[in-house]
């Protein structure tokens, strides 16, 4: 097997092996280090000597040995050594809940979202620290420090290493979904750095969300999040020009959308909506499905998009949702109605000076026939954004409306 093929295999297997070890030895930090060491050994040996018949068993055995070696050399833990060493590794371990167990550990509430994201990518995604650091454009040392601190924090918190039950489980699942959503967004809204690595991140988020969905197919929010990601990911090729400029939704070449992903996402979105309770991911997926359903931007069922945003606004009030609803309202009732709804957001400190508010207002002013006001808002929006592609797009819109 070649190097890259071995890498793919390891990325798939290391989280499973980590899950087995954490389950058996009930500690995260040591197990994580041991699995990384075993994976490193495999990455060196397998391309040269061939992949063993049972690669997962090989990794489990090597990682267990490393862990026990480490514990053995650790004088303070000598007492635990005998018990651990005596525990014979079972031949086959069911991997039913391992992904979830690991995700729940990595999304521990004592960690910041940035640490949860990094740890999830390493422990569950099987990415190396260097890969994660590159994706987030920080030095490897910075990412290594963050990951090691996150592991220490989990240890210090005295985590139970069991899947929580009932309400605690639902709450933690909410954090897990949010972290997966953040990973996806980090990859999707690439503002700088290597485009390639960023889309890897989006793909990784899709892969992890698929894994959660496989274990919790009945959870409508999990289904909704997966649908939302697939429907958004399907548009990736059409979102930018060859030179990296942003193409807004209404100008995208819809034949460039990934049909297979859209069909899968649409089916999932429909399944999610049929669930017992409505959640924000389901509704966002339904909105994305409505956009995907239209053959052209003009044929978009804006009334339905508006209705969905209205429900979303009710169950998860958020100025950004109101902002998006204003866009839909402008399509159904005209730009003046959209602007009137935007005016209700003016006093909201969460959106004050936000480039999205400025750029939506610019678009609506342009459609209303106020080029001077539109140009001014496009310029202000361009100055307010931290994304280069977005800035180029907004500056171009301003320029189209005339000289300074």
């Amino acid at each position, binding site marked *: 097997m070649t190097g890259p093929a071995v890498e793919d295999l390891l990325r798939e297997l290391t989280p499973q092996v980590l899950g087995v070890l954490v389950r058996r030895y009930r500690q995260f930090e040591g197990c994580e280090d041991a699995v990384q060491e075993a994976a490193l050994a495999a990455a060196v040996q397998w391309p040269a000597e061939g992949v063993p018949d049972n690669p997962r068993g090989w990794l489990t055995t090597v990682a267990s040995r490393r862990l026990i070696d480490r514990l053995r050399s650790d004088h303070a833990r000598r007492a635990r050594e005998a018990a651990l060493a005596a525990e014979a590794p079972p031949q086959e371990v069911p991997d039913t809940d391992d992904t979830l167990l690991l995700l729940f550990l990595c999304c521990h509430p004592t960690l910041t979202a940035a640490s949860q994201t990094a740890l999830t990518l390493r422990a569950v995604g099987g990415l190396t620290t260097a890969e994660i650091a590159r994706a987030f454009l920080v030095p490897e040392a910075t990412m290594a420090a963050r990951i090691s*601190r996150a592991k220490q924090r989990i240890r210090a918190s005295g985590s139970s290493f069991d899947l929580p039950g009932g309400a605690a489980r639902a709450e933690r699942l909410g954090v897990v979904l949010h972290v997966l959503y953040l990973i996806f967004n980090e990859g999707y809204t690439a503002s700088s750095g290597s485009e390639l690595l960023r889309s890897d991140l989006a793909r990784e988020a899709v892969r992890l969300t698929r894994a959660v969905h496989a274990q919790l197919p009945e959870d409508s929010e999990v289904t909704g999040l997966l649908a939302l990601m697939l429907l958004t990911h399907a548009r990736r090729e059409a979102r930018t020009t060859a030179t990296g400029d942003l193409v807004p939704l209404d100008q995208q070449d819809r034949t460039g959308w990934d049909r297979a992903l859209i069909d899968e996402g649409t089916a999932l979105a429909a399944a999610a909506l049929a669930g017992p309770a409505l959640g924000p991911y389901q509704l966002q997926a339904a909105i994305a499905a409505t956009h995907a359903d239209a053959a052209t931007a003009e044929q978009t069922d804006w009334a339905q998009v508006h209705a969905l945003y209205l429900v979303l606004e009710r169950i998860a009030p958020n100025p950004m949702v109101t902002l998006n609803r204003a866009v839909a309202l402008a399509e159904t009732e005209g730009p003046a109605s959209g602007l009137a709804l935007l005016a209700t957001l003016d006093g909201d400190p969460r959106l004050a000076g936000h480039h999205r508010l400025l750029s939506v207002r610019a678009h609506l002013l342009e459609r209303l026939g106020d080029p001077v006001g539109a140009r001014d808002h496009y310029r202000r929006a361009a100055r307010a954004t931290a994304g280069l592609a977005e800035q180029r797009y907004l500056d171009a819109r301003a320029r189209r409306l005339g000289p300074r």
Partner: protein
Amino acid sequence: MKFLISMHINPAVMDALTDEEKTALGVGHGAFIEELTKSGELIVTQALVDPSQAAVVTVRDGRTAVTDGPFLEAKEYLGGFYLVDCEDRDRAVELAGRIPDAAIEGLGVEVRQVMFSAGPLDA
């Protein structure tokens, strides 16, 4: 999210500090750097020499001229910076507030988000 926390110094204010105050400033930065490194939020920090050591470079009609002194005639000059990668703007502001300079009258600490990055990441 990456932020540049820049420290704007006034050489006259720096000169007026007592030795104890200068030592406290150095110790404060040391502790801050250690903590930031541990938390994984520090990307890099650099301190700049006094603005009196600055050179201003201009190219006019293809000819390069180098003159002494800072470009801006100001009381405050860029003294150094921290490049951090932290959760959000609130955290960056909180970090900036812990830099000892922030507590000294006449020195300024400014926070701005990074828009574009390039160069080796192990800087």
